[in-house]
């Protein structure tokens, strides 16, 4: 059911620039709070029909799908069990079907979109254009679809407990030896947003952070008009798991800072997390921009509040290989003369290597190893994030929306 303009009865949509409900027909503007429309009352009685019953079909595409009638044109609106607002595929008017959900499952807060669709696309294009290794076809990508979606989040307070054993190297006398370090403790964290839509991976959604929670408003369905939205479908175990992962990350960082050793790594851990069950349910805004490159789906995320762009893109492999070869050859040739000079002085007139020489050799070997591992780790991280951007589930999450 759309919220209608009280002057001309055209459907209102939320405008991120003015933060008002805008009528595109007569230009009237209203604050979402002042629109106490009949639509809100109507939504309370909104009834959906099961799509599999309507079509008398057991096909998978109708599973967990519901059929509504568009309040404007009477057209059929099909949404899945977790969608809360959508557009009519026939007349394009916004339809919010929120109140079909029990009051307890309604969000308490909503962070209205501040970034418009045009701004989101521009931000994504501008950011991508700066990439030296991004192929030209991606820099000039043609948008498959661009949807503003409110993602459900639980804002969580929790206490993380752990007993961790770290292994690290320390200098004892003139030797470097392996030693173990124990750290037991807890950390409390406040207002951690945990993504409540199962279909979006936590790895992707957490990159939209940080959100400025001061921009949250008390929930009002009118903020959803003109955007898509989903409701929470996660379990307590999902939230606990997400809080545990983040708590562990913070705890390890704090412990590593506290331990006086190098090459520190966790060898044993006994974590537990106590999540405050009084979580705050909020809808946070994000733009999902999809495009195809070499037949692969890609989804760029843009934080609808801060404009942060999140994606990892395939690179120009030929350019990368040429650059690696050129730098490797140049550096090898230059360093050859330095190493030759150094080794000549070390092995001069048949003298044996002393401890100072051995230390220099060890330092060089460790240095080379570090360069290798850091370089490979960077490439691996990019590849991992490319897989997230190419995630088919997220692509269809965006693409399947009606309208």
């Amino acid at each position, binding site marked *: 059911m759309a919220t209608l303009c009280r002057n001309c009865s055209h459907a209102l949509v939320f405008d991120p620039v003015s933060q008002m409900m805008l009528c595109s027909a007569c230009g009237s503007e209203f604050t979402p709070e002042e629109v106490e429309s009949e639509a809100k009352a109507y939504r309370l009685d909104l009834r959906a029909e099961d799509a599999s019953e309507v079509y008398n079909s057991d096909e998978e595409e109708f599973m967990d799908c519901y059929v509504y009638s568009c309040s404007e044109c009477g057209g059929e609106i099909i949404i899945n069990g977790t969608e809360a607002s959508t557009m009519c595929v026939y007349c394009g008017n916004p339809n919010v079907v929120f109140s079909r959900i029990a009051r307890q499952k309604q969000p308490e807060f909503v962070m209205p979109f501040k970034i418009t669709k045009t701004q989101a696309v521009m931000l994504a294009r501008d950011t991508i254009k700066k990439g030296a290794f991004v192929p030209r076809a991606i820099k000039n990508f043609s948008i498959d679809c661009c949807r503003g979606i409110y993602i459900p989040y639980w804002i969580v307070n929790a206490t993380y407990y752990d007993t961790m054993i770290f292994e690290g190297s320390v200098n004892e006398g003139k030797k470097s030896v392996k030693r173990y370090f124990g750290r037991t403790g807890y950390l409390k964290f406040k207002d951690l947003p945990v993504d409540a839509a199962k279909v979006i991976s936590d790895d992707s959604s957490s990159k939209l952070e940080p959100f400025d929670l001061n921009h949250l408003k008390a929930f009002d369905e009118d903020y959803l008009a003109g955007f898509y939205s989903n409701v929470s479908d996660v379990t307590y175990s999902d939230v606990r798991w997400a809080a545990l992962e983040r708590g562990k990350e913070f705890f390890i960082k704090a412990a590593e800072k506290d331990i006086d050793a190098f090459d520190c790594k966790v060898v044993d851990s006994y974590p537990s997390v106590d999540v405050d069950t009084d979580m705050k349910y909020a809808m946070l805004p994000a733009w999902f921009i999809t495009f195809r490159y070499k037949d692969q789906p890609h989804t760029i995320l843009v934080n609808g509040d801060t404009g942060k762009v999140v994606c990892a893109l395939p690179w120009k492999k030929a350019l990368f290989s040429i650059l690696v070869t050129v*730098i490797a050859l140049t550096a090898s*040739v230059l360093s050859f003369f330095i190493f030759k000079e150094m080794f000549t002085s070390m092995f001069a007139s048949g003298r044996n290597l002393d401890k100072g020489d051995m230390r220099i050799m060890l330092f060089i070997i460790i240095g080379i190893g570090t360069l290798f591992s850091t370089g490979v780790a960077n490439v691996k991280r990019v590849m991992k994030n490319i897989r997230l951007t190419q995630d088919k589930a997220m692509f269809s999450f965006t693409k399947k929306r009606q309208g």
Partner: protein
Amino acid sequence: MINFFAGLFALAFGIGLALWICGSMLDKSNNIGDSRGDSKTYNAEATFTSKCNRMEKTECTTYVQHNLITNDTNGPSGTEQVRRLTEEERRKKAEAEKKANIPKGAFVSKNTSAEDKYDVPDWEKRAERYY
């Protein structure tokens, strides 16, 4: 011999340096927005209740046995869908927390409410529960 070793070291250094430079450039160029809120964002400061440095491997088991925190969470079942608490549940929870925080034998004045000590941020006050 010297030439062989110098060549070997030079090649390894060259490839390592090239990988490091190009890997960093690739990360900066193609891995966009790869960051998330850190411990400062969520006021997550760790408090260590026990520390032990420079242990031998055999000492680790004893350390864990002495320091393991067993934390019983009386939360809802893991398979239950997350939902907002009702006013009644929230009130009961606040009362239980208040009781748990009172030291035994302490004098408690009658007119203190459960929310007294909770520092509510401004954004949270916009919620219906504070109307």
